[in-house]
């Protein structure tokens, strides 16, 4: 593997979900906006106008992958140091966040597992849920040093139904969260090459759209 290929594998951004199941489409939708932002940043860095404001720092090279099945994540994590995963979250019980709320959770090698809700139906709509896929990766020695999960609380997951207004409104917030994590990585790498930034405890918190 070339140095460039290894750099590309170092950071993985994943959107999980089924585009045809209402709010489960949030992962692919957020990845679309993140891809747009990455392209704009790359263009902006190359085309800085004379005398214009300083361009925003380029984001680090990364792979963007949309997965309908969280189990595929186990393969994608191989060789990865930082994974940012966007997925729909089913929040249940007293104190559950409102649909459209954006949550940020962290795990990774040497870190505790993601908190799994006692009701497994709150784990998502996939056969092998995201927490299970990550723990399988850990058991196989493929857990990245750092995993950030950007979760968007879903309202509905019915087959064929459109995305709810609340979750649609959360797409920019979730996408900016991903871009912010990448920017933090780039800044930390510039200041202290090879020394990753301090990692997220979990849960980090809720960001209102």
């Amino acid at each position, binding site marked *: 593997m070339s140095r460039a290929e290894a750099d590309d594998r170092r950071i993985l951004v994943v959107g999980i979900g*089924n585009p*045809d*199941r209402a709010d489960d489409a949030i992962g692919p939708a957020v990845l679309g906006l993140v891809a747009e932002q990455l392209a704009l940043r790359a263009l902006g860095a190359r085309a800085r106008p004379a005398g214009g404001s300083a361009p925003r720092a380029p984001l680090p090279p990364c792979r963007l992958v949309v997965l*309908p*099945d969280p*189990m*595929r994540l*186990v*393969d994608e994590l191989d060789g990865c140091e930082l994974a940012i995963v966007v997925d729909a979250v089913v929040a249940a019980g007293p104190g559950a966040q409102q649909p459209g709320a954006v949550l940020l959770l962290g795990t990774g090698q040497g870190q505790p597992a993601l908190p799994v809700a006692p009701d*497994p*139906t709150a784990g*998502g*709509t*996939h*056969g*092998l849920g995201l927490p*299970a896929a990550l*723990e*399988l990766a850990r*058991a*196989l*020695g493929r857990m990245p040093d750092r995993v950030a999960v950007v979760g968007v609380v879903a309202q509905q*997951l019915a*087959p*064929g139904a459109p995305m709810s207004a609340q979750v649609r409104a959360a797409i920019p917030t979730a996408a900016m969260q991903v871009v912010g994590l990448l920017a933090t990585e780039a800044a930390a790498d510039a200041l202290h090459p090879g020394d990753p930034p301090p990692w997220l405890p979990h849960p980090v918190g809720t960001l209102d759209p």
Partner: protein
Amino acid sequence: MSTAPRELTVPMLARVEGEGGMHVVVQDGRAVEVQLRIFEPPRFFEGFLRGRSYLEPPDITARICGICPVAYQFSACLAIEDACGVVVPEELRLLRRLLYCGEWIESHALHVFMLHLPDLLGYDGAIEMAADHRGLVESALRMKRAGNELMTVVGGRSVHPVNVRVGGFHRLPEPAALRALRPMLSAALDDALAAVPLLARQEYPDLEQPHLYVALDAGHGYPLESGAALVTSSGLTVPVSSFGTHIVEHQVGHSHALQGRFDGQPYLVGPLARYSLHFAALSPVAQQVASAAGLGRTCRNPFRSILVRLVELVHALVEALAIIDAWDGAPVAAVPVEPRAAEGHGATEAPRGLLYHRYRIDGSGTILAAQIVPPTAQNQPAIEADLRAVVEANLGLDDEALTRACETAIRTYDPCISCATHFLRLTVDRR
């Protein structure tokens, strides 16, 4: 004097595809009530399809299931092509068979090694099993990946393929891309063969069930991507177009899924039925695996279905390699399919069993009626019968052990309960 009823409830069964529940009531040593409660999105899809173009079912119905989209696509294609009086050329049938092999490889590798095997080896799930059997889980992921890659090359992507259309494919795969799959498929075959001794030496509960077996005929080899007729273990041969004459779906109060019955009796579709009806059509390598695994020419024990799936996994890998080796391209990627006012029927063998589609279209190609009968709905009465047998044979077990036995029995069927929703609630309650 009768004893107090014993009600068993398990709210959630893991490692199955679908959402539903089960309720068992035991009284006087008998399971007086066994209900498998499931939700079934295909019912909604039948509604979505009315008023749509006759060219749309392959893409729309593929969305019913993330595990077996190819099955939905090809059953839909066959039914529409039947209505329009078209049979695709042999090369395209073979390409369909190749894509279908990818789906079987992916689905069977997942079920055998990640969903069913943890029960046999005494683990809660694949994660716990991976701690002690890392190499086995790694090999399962390799096999699944081989199926995914095959689906990507032939189908355009590994889940919900986009290359399938009524009449054939949107484009033919490059022969070099097909040949490039060979090392991965060969390695997957080695992985599958290496697992045979481990599975062969496990202890399987004794349970012989007398279900009527139903599968497609073996006109094109071991039943898979097409078939003209259904065959049964009672010796019947029924044209696919007569599916509705023999198989009638009933609504039951405890389930959203309609339950199928064949001439009024419960029946079973899927690996056990295919294997027992068509052992002779398996490849020699697959037959040798069956022998090494301790299987006879038929199998009536649902707990041993993991061995049958392993045999079918080997068969699918062997067939995929053979089709790739012989592939010499096709003159066209698809043949024209003009609409006409008619009804068409199509059936293929999804990993979990027979999947039937029926469409009625008008002269302009608008769909007037659609019917989709997935395998798990057909198997529901047989699964309930097996659960009853498991409960009554294990009444001495405490609640926890009996519950686990029930969960294991359900998982042997690899139920794709909703083909889109993903959890089964199992409730076992003793009173």
